[in-house]
Structures are given as C-alpha cells and as structure tokens.
C-alpha cells in the first residue's frame, strides 16, 4: 500500500499543496490533470526522487523520507519506475540497460544463462524480440521501442510497485494502444500495484481501477472510471469529455479570456 500524507512541494511557486492519497495493494491508479499541476512531482516523491517540503510518503507502512539509506535503497528496489522518455543509459546496450533493473548480485553475474533468460523474458513481456534488440544501443531504437525497453528494465526485477510517468507521451496511436495493453497485461500477470501519470484520459479510464484528478497542486477528484465519467464537477467533465473541454475553451476564447488563465482547461 502507498500512502501520501499531506505532501507539499514548491519550486519557487507551490506545486503540491497538501496531497493525501492512498493506493491499495494491486490497485492501478491513474493521475490526470493539466500540465504543470504536479503529477510527475507527486510520482517522484513516491520513491524519493524528489523530497517533499512537508508531509510524508509511506510504502507498506515504511516512511520513504524517515528511513535510513539502506532502507530507502530497499524501498527503491520494490518500486519500478518507467520514465517519460525512457531514460535509458546511452552508453549501454539494451541487455546492459535491462540488467541494471536486476539486483546487484544478479547484475554482477550478468553473463550467466539465468540472467540472460530473465532479461530475454522481460523483453518478450514487452513484445520485443531479444534476438533483434539485445545488443543494440538506445540510439538505434525507435521511440516506442525505447519506451518498451524502459518498461522491461522496470519489470525485470519483479517489483511490487510500478510507477509510469507519461508512458504514452510522444507515441503514435498504435504504440499508445500497445503500451496500454502492456500495462494491463503486466498487471494481470504480476498483480503489481501501479500508478500511471498520463495526459491521455482515454488510456487512464481504460486501464485504471481508480482515477485521481490533480489541479493546482490539490486533488480535485478520486474515484472509479465510472464515477469519473458521470461526475457533475465541471472540471472533471471537461477532462472526461474532450468535446466539453473544447467547447469550454472556445467559450472562454470568445469571452476574450486568455486560454492560459483557464483553470478548467485540460
């Protein structure tokens, strides 16, 4: 279980202003919201990549910020992180990149058949052919393939929690659907707890048990996809229905209000 307890974070201006949220074990929760409202910042506080100014994050009851260095390293091993642009190590091959997701001991035995099998399994899990990509450098892969290698690196160590930061940003519709399907398959197969930060509301509603809407650093809505679709909240409705969002934006433009000031604009 992941608990966010009154998390505050500011970079010159407040980004998160008291977010409290619980994600149950084996649940998939999507966080949606306009750009710059702190979705990725909240995700990065989960495994200590960013330290909140106030508040705490607990994983299975253990505080991420009040634990010793070894405990934090242990927590991080439980958590797989899929970065927005994959964040693969440029100088390493796909095999070496995926190997870094294994434990230290396993990585040191990188050339053993067992490690090779684990890496190949992870690549096959994300629909990549190991024979084709294993020895390639990240620069030799397409954007979609890089994202899938990033996902393979995150799942190879069999984490209990997976954090996805904008997993479909920059992908074409075919790859977007493929990544969504992968997230669902991984959840079914490994029963992992997942948090997905996304702009793609269709994807969020398709893959999630619950959806959280973050606006201006605060949670505006947390509920099931069905509740999200039927919510009366105009901000939620603007997100749930792109046509409503477009109409609301158009109305504001016609009234002469700049789009940037529109708080309800997705």
């Amino acid at each position, binding site marked *: 279980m992941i608990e966010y307890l009154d998390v505050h974070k500011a970079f010159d201006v407040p980004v998160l202003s008291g977010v409290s949220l619980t994600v149950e074990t084996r649940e998939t929760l999507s966080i949606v919201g306009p750009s710059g409202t702190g979705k990725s910042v909240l995700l*990065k506080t989960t*495994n*200590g*990549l960013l330290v909140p100014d106030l508040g705490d994050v607990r994983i299975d009851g253990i505080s991420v910020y009040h634990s010793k260095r070894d405990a934090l*390293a*242990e927590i*991080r*091993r439980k*958590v*797989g*992180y899929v*970065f*927005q*642009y994959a*964040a*693969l*190590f*440029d100088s390493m091959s796909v095999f070496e990149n995926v190997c*870094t*997701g294994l434990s230290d001991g396993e990585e040191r035995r990188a050339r053993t058949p067992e490690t090779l099998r684990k890496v190949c399994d992870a690549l096959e899990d994300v629909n990549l052919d190991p024979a084709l990509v294993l020895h390639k450098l990240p620069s030799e892969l397409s954007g979609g393939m890089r994202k899938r290698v990033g996902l393979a*690196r995150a799942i190879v160590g069999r984490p209990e929690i997976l954090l996805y930061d904008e997993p479909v940003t920059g992908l074409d519709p075919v790859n977007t659907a493929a990544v969504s399907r992968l997230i669902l398959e991984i959840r079914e197969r490994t029963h992992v707890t997942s948090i997905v930060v996304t702009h793609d509301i269709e994807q969020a509603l398709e893959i999630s048990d619950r959806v959280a809407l973050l606006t201006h650093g605060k949670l505006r809505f947390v509920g099931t996809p069905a509740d999200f679709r039927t919510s009366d909240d105009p901000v939620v409705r603007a997100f749930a229905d792109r046509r409503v969002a477009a109409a609301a934006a158009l109305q504001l433009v016609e009234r002469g209000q700049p789009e940037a000031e529109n708080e309800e604009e997705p």
Partner: protein
Amino acid sequence: MQKLVAKAVRGLFARIGRTAESVFRHAGQMTLLLWGVARATFTGRVALGDVVTQLMSVGVGSIPLVAVTAVLSGVVTSQQGGYQFTSSIPLYVLGSVVTSSVVLELAPVMTAFVLIGRVGARITAELGTMQVSEQIDALYSLGRDPVPVLAAPRIIAGTIATPLLVGLACFIGVFAGLVAARFAVGLGAESFLYGARMYWHSWDLLYSITKGLVFGFVIPLISVHMGFGTRGGAEGVGRATTSAVVLMIITVLVLDATFPPLFLN
C-alpha cells in the same frame, strides 16, 4: 536622483548577496559530493573496472594532446629565450630557463588546460545530459547511488592520471626545448644540460607533480558537480559546460598562484 542612487546601491548589494549565496551553495554542494566520493571509495563501493575505464579516457586518451602542448611549450620557450639571451647572457643559461619554465609552470598548467578542455568539459556535458534526460534519476530509482558509479571513478582517475601526465609533459617539454635550442641558437645538448643542472633543484619535479595532483583532483570535482547540477534541457547542458570550463580555469589559475608562496619560499 537620490532615489536612483538608492536603487543602484540596493541593486549592487542584491547582486553581491546573490553571488555570495551562489558561491556558498556551490561550495556546500561540492563538500557533500567530496564526502560522498570519500565514503564510497573507502567503503569499497567503487568498481575497479569503472576507474580503469576512466583512467584510459582521462590518462591514455590525453597523452597525444598533452605531448603536442608540451612540445610546443618547450620549443617556444627555447626559441624566445634564445632570442633574448643572444650576445648578452651566456647561452647555456637557456637550459636552466627552459627547464625551470617547463617544469615549474608550463607543464602542469598547460596539462591542466588540456584536461579542462578535453576531459572536464566532456564530463560536465556527459553528466549534464544524463541529468536532463533523467538517467541520473533512473540510477536512483534502480537503488543505485550515482556517486560511486559516476562521480568517484572520474575523480579518482583524474587524481591518478594528471600527475603522471604532468611528469610526461615535463620530460617532453624539456627535450623539445633542448632540440629547439640546438636549431634556433646553436646551443649543443651538453651546454643545455649543463645550464639545466646548474639551477636545478630536485624538489622542482615534485613541486610540479604536486600541482598536477591538485589540478587533477579539482578539475573532475568541479566538472562532476556542474554536471550533476545541470537543469533545463540542451540549453542547460551548454550553460553548465561553459560555466564549468570558466570555473575550472579560474580555479586552476588561483591554485597555481597559491603554490609559489606555499612551497617555493
């Protein structure tokens, strides 16, 4: 008018305050980095393979450029010294001038400048790119500390390789000066070496190598620190690299200026 002066004074103090804050912040962050590197090194968390890889890059990879710089330093010193000494001072003194100039000053400082351009800028750009493309975050998220993996091998390799490069630059520079003296002013090797021995202190070479040790430590330290602190995409990497090069040059020159009063007087 009074308001304008008050505004200008306020602006000046604000600028001084911001600069002081920046200096203290950098100093604090570098101290923490240094502490992390020392702890990683003495607890055996730095992989020998990573250090060897960096030694090849920093040390072996820099040999050709350091050699060229040393040859040119020796040749220019010899030619200009020969031009000034002709028909005024005994020519064998040229041996002493070339040897002292190369060993005490030119070899360590020119080697440091080569390393700033070739190694320091590369380290900042490399780590800065890793920072802005979230590769450093990826290391953290995989439970790995970037200090033993990225920072320590580079700083250890710089500290080991630079004194050796300085020693090599001393030898090559003096030899190049000797050959140039022969062709420029007709000073034979024996006379050159006679002059060189006349004013030679065995401490000089140690002094030069000590400079190399200090420069070899601060260059990767600054470049790693600036790389880790990079923000803001490709433009940020460019800005960080430029700032790192400027900071490394100033630091090397300031340290160079502190050496004579500390060790030669």
